[in-house]
């Protein structure tokens, strides 16, 4: 019995509704947090940060955001790319309009702007459901991308329509622009990740979260027992877009530094983030992390194995990569349709019973 909860009793309802009711889990969580905050910043270099950690952290925020909408509230959305673009362009406008304000403020404001846009595009969800809604959110996706590409005000009339992040700071430390330190950008994003996960977790365990889940599981029944469906759906759109906006802002300002809307925030991005949460596990914060890690790390890992170790031609590796990622997605789904998070839960259940099979 590797994993035990025996002896862990909750004496009060507060304790029982903790995020990690089991001590073992709690300690493991503190350990991960400690490593993330106090160890990793000292050992990473540009490569690790720019190719792995930043995308992982930023996608994790987007995945948490989308998971609130899709996983918790059941409203399938394919507008993520467009909403990230809103975050990015809002951030760009704030950064250039108020150069002296801290990046923290810019990013949070971008989240708020995105939340507003999200609510607007969430309105049709009252009538349109399921995959129909998914396809309808594509309208947001395509429209927003077109808009940012089309209206020069958004990119400050630059010649090419690209936006580039000027140098901005957070408590005097450079966060954007070419001269940033690996640890600084890492910690800056990590801060938002922890914030997002914390807020998302609190919202989903309380009454708002239950409203969302009720709508997801059976919207008619939810309405009849007293959930205002429009409010519930729109709050989900708002919160979700808030996080997605933050991730878009970070994606542009901290990670890439320059983006072109159609390329960086195209429909592919919407799909990518959706894949993350489905593979990771719908309705699970941990799943958002797992999914983001899976889709950010796996291709890089496969590339390293194929190209650097075996020395195969890059195109063959790239094609094999598609085959393997596709194959793995299918294998995972067959093994456990509810994602990596569920796989992890089942594994824990089995460990708890181990060595007995049932």
């Amino acid at each position, binding site marked *: 019995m590797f994993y035990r909860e025996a002896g862990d009793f909750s004496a009060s309802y507060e304790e029982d509704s903790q995020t990690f009711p089991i001590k073992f889990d709690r300690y493991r969580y503190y350990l991960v947090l400690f490593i993330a905050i106090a160890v990793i910043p000292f050992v990473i270099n540009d490569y690790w940060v720019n190719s792995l950690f930043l995308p992982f952290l930023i996608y994790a925020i987007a995945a948490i955001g989308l998971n609130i909408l899709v996983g918790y509230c059941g409203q399938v959305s394919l507008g993520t790319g467009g909403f990230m673009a809103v975050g990015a362009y809002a951030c760009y406008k704030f950064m250039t309009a108020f150069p002296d304000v801290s990046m923290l403020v810019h990013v949070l404001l971008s989240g708020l702007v995105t939340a507003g846009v999200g609510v607007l595009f969430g309105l049709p969800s009252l009538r349109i459901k399921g995959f129909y809604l998914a396809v309808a959110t594509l309208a947001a996706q395509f429209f927003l991308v077109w808009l940012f590409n089309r209206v020069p005000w958004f990119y400050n009339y630059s010649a090419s329509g690209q936006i580039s992040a000027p140098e901005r700071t957070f408590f005097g430390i450079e966060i954007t622009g070419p001269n940033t330190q690996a640890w600084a950008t890492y910690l800056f994003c990590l801060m938002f990740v922890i914030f997002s996960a914390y807020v998302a977790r609190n919202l989903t365990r309380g009454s708002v979260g239950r409203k969302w889940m009720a709508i997801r599981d059976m919207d008619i029944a939810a309405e009849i027992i007293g959930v205002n469906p429009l409010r519930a759906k729109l709050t989900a759109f708002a919160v979700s877009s808030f996080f997605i906006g933050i991730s878009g802002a970070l994606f542009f300002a901290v990670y890439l530094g320059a983006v072109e809307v159609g390329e960086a925030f195209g429909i592919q991005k919407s799909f990518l983030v959706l894949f993350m949460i489905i593979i990771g596990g719908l309705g699970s914060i941990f799943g958002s992390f797992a999914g983001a890690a899976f889709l950010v790390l796996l291709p890089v890992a496969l590339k390293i194995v194929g190209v650097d170790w075996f020395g195969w031609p890059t195109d063959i590796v790239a094609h094999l990569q598609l085959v393997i990622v596709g194959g793995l997605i299918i294998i995972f789904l067959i093994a456990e349709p509810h994602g990596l998070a569920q796989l992890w839960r*089942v594994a824990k*259940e*089995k460990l708890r019973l181990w060595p007995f099979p*049932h």
Partner: protein
Amino acid sequence: MLDATPTPDAQVETLLEVNNIEVIYNSVILVLKGVSLKVPKGGITALLGGNGAGKTTTLKAISNLLHSERGEVTKGSIKYRNDPVHKLDPAEMVKRGVVQVMEGRHCFEHLTIEENLLTGAYTRSDGKAAIARDLEMVYEYFPRLRERRKSQAGYTSGGEQQMCAIGRALMSRPETILLDEPSMGLAPQLVEQIFEIVKSVNENEGVTFLLAEQNTNVALRFAHYGYILESGRVVMDGPAADLRENQDVKEFYLGMSDEGRKSFRDVRSYRRRKRWLS
């Protein structure tokens, strides 16, 4: 109507034999813990038991519908006419003459009643004329269906859907029908009617029935033999007439005590569960 046909004697061929099966859902939840039963040819066998006892699971194990619910028979064997069948495709089971009417009716909502019935004949290859004849036969049994033949099944009432489901099963010319809770949610009159039809199909067409039922009262009136299931085990079995007289069955399944039926209002305590096994 309390005199069902006497139990078929031991000479009658056993059509279906379930031997000590174990069923696990999601590879962790053990639901059936060794269920055995025999269904004689031409009989009506009832499977009784409380909520979650495993009746539905047993029927699905026989018809092989478990697979699509992530359930699995892990032990024991199921034999139909002495052939092991638990690895077969559900469609193959139907071809061999075993068809299940599922709990909760499960009509094809968007198909008309007639299309529903015709789908029942999917596995048959004995020609259009034969199918048309059987369609006629089903309409004979359920005149109500003839009236609604062109309506979409999704918009018919619960009772009509139940008839449709049974009729659809008949359309495959089955040898054995597994009937899961035919009475659920039906008005009392309809319950009687449906059991009457089961009886006449059994007598006229020689179809064998295995039925799972909560409505013990009716079930034991029409069945020849009964099994009582509790938390995944068979706890009692015997000819229906015997079961009806059994004291425990009377008390827990028929709601009768020595003084006859007692009022629901008079049950004073609900902490009085007695189980054969626990």
